[in-house]
């Protein structure tokens, strides 16, 4: 069991190769796997397909990988706030598949839960449904959406133990739990690694069975995109 425990991102990311499909947790810059992204940038792996709700900003998050042209395709629901992303998308260097946010989340959950496809009303009659199977069920039209899996899923949690059990904090949970389920190899970076038993089993969000590797991250920046204050 302790084989899941790694010293750092460099050790934990062993086995990543060009042209792989990756999932990266986070919403905006909240709850992104900062240490894993830093290591992906250092390794300069190319040809990646990245599944992530957003694409970071120019100088942080997945934006750092875009700067090095490591990504050939993004699968996301919203990709604003990123000038380099826009440039690559408009020039055709970067392929982008936009999906409704709930559909994206459910595709990850389904992929991780052994459900190959599911029907959803979301997107019916829009561009999102083009080329996809549709079906009428009880008088309403639905779109068939395949589940998603990834070679590696990178997730960020607040606390975790060497068994891979994870607890998230605040809205930094977002896509992390469903992506943890959908990774063939899921790598969790945590702010705080604790001893087994310290996490109350009643309050664990992601059971360790979904996590193959875990390490304690360092130097979290936790950048805030929109710092809004009540005076």
């Amino acid at each position, binding site marked *: 069991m302790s084989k899941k425990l790694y010293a750092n991102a460099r050790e934990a990311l062993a086995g990543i190769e060009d042209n792989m499909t990756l999932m990266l947790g986070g*919403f*905006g*810059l*909240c*709850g992104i796997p900062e240490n894993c992204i830093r290591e992906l940038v250092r390794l300069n792996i190319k040809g990646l397909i990245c599944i992530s*709700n957003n694409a970071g900003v120019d100088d942080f998050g997945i934006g750092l990988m875009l700067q090095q042209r490591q990504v050939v395709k993004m699968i*996301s*629901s*919203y*990709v*604003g706030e990123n000038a380099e992303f*826009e440039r690559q*998308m*408009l020039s055709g260097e970067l392929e*982008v598949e*936009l999906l*409704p*946010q*709930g*559909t*994206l*989340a*459910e595709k*990850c*959950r389904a992929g991780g839960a052994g459900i190959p496809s599911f029907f*959803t*009303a*979301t*997107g*019916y*009659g*829009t*561009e*999102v449904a083009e080329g996809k199977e549709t079906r009428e069920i009880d008088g309403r039209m639905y779109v068939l959406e395949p589940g998603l899996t990834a070679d590696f899923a990178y997730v960020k949690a*607040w606390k975790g133990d060497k068994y891979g059990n994870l607890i*998230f*904090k*605040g*809205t*930094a*949970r*977002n*896509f*992390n*739990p*469903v992506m943890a389920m959908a990774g063939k190899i899921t790598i969790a970076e945590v702010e705080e690694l604790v001893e087994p038993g310290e996490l109350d089993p009643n309050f664990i*969000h992601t059971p360790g069975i979904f996590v193959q590797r875990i390490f304690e991250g360092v130097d979290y920046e*936790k*950048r*805030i*995109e*929109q*710092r*809004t*204050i*009540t*005076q």
Partner: protein
Amino acid sequence: MALSKQQIAQRIAQELKDGWYVNLGIGIPTLVANYIPEGVNVTLQSENGLLGMGPFPTEDKVDADLINAGKQTVTMLPGSVLFNSSESFAMIRGGHMDLTVLGAMEIDQNGDIANWKIPGKMVKGMGGAMDLVAGTENIIVAMTHANKHGKSKLLKQCSLPLTGRACIRRVVTDLAYLTIENGAFVLRELAPGVSVKEVESLTDGDLVVADDVCEMTF
């Protein structure tokens, strides 16, 4: 006089009912939270994984791990709950939200809505909008009646790529409160000082003036 953004939000807030779970989109919809009537308790959902969203934090309470769907720092009210994106959209897609308020670039008399993409311009994505319009029974669109070029946003048929089909039944604009019924816009309330003629001239879709059309009150 056309309504300000704040007044549009204020009018929509009058529709809120005690005990409702409500999702407010970015822009004018967000302002609705400032006008929730006295004695009405609603729980605000943020689709990135929070029910019970509170106001922006004071400087000392800012937490990078607590943001809303607009990526703004927020707070949690007592009784709040956090969840993952899949559960969040189970609430939305599963029809558990009592009301969604969102903005639009265009709506039409069939209830179609377009609010995510302008061909030829940078496409940022639909985020959760398609899920919200497909999954919520009760939707109010908050927008200006005409775009910045003075062209109507209430059309016979949307010209922009759709966000959802046949899902919109109510809209509050800077000029009026209208419903969509039987393939036409129905003028229900006029903003103070706005005439039926003005609304007619800026509504491209078929418009029916309700027998009991009245002036909006605040």
